[in-house]
């Protein structure tokens, strides 16, 4: 014998307006929701303002600069990056950075792993593996030499970066936050 389909008796459970028409209106809830909506719109306005200012990357507040006190280099970069979005880190070298017509630059491993270094302009003459980083060698005959790293972060998070002109230059350290 087959089981009969389950049934439930109909109840007049939906609240009525004027005791006449079942609508299920909940004005008390709706008023709370309208208050929530107003808060959300204020929040959205704050988010847009922060984005315009560059607080989420790619804007004025995201740009940063570090200079070595020994005048070996001047680095322009974005300390707030965005996941999988290209950016340029530019290094301008001072005369103290050039030794025997070459510049040796140490960069931390985070440049390649987390910050996703895609390209170096100009291409280095050679690259060597160093302790928790890489040393690039560039031929240089002008003290206005500059190098650009095209970065494309591979994951979100806060990552330390370090750069140093070898031998003996001041090591510049900073942190880059990658927005999701």
């Amino acid at each position, binding site marked *: 014998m087959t089981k009969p389909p389950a049934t439930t008796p109909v109840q007049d459970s939906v609240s009525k307006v004027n005791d006449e*028409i079942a609508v299920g209106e909940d004005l008390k809830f709706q008023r709370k929701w309208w208050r929530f909506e107003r808060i959300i719109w204020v929040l959205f306005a704050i988010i847009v303002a922060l984005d315009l200012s560059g607080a989420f990357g790619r804007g004025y507040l995201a740009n940063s600069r570090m200079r070595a006190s020994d005048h070996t280099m001047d680095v322009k970069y974005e300390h707030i990056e965005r996941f999988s979005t290209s950016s340029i880190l530019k290094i301008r070298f001072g005369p103290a950075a050039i030794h025997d017509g070459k510049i040796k630059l140490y960069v931390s491993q985070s440049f390649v792993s987390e910050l996703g270094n895609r390209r170096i302009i100009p291409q280095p003459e050679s690259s060597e593996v160093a302790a928790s980083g890489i040393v690039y060698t560039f031929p240089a005959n002008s003290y206005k030499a500059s190098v650009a790293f095209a970065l494309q972060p591979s994951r979100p998070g806060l990552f330390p970066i370090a750069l140093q002109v070898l031998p003996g230059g001041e090591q510049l350290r900073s942190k880059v936050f990658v927005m999701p």
Partner: protein
Amino acid sequence: MYTIIHAMLGYFFLLLIVRVLSRRPGGQLTLFEFVIVFLMGGIIILSTVGDDRSETNCTCAIITIAMMHQIVAWLKGRFPRFGAVVDGTPLVLLKDGEWQNEAMHGMRIDPEDVMAAARGVGLKSLTQIRYAVLERNGAISIIPQKK
């Protein structure tokens, strides 16, 4: 993994956006609102699939969104309050010849919208309406005056 997280976040974010925008989807979708729907859909897809355009990635994203939808539907049925948060509740816009100003202003609905729904049921004037109710799906139900 990122695709699934992005799809889940994207689903809830779009749900919030659509919910805080005025409730006029479905039957009353105007050209103006079509722009929002298509533009938001196009933008959210960029972060959902990223630069991985493989079938595996797209399949996982679609399955995730389908599962999110199913879970939300189940929660709506299980918890009526959750249903009210996601879909809202019906609101009376016009009652016994009087506009319910709080609901009309709160939902950004004009008398013209109510009249459009009234014409749909064969009424010729706003005075012929006894009740106008904004339903959860955005449609406006009209109950005519007794003859």
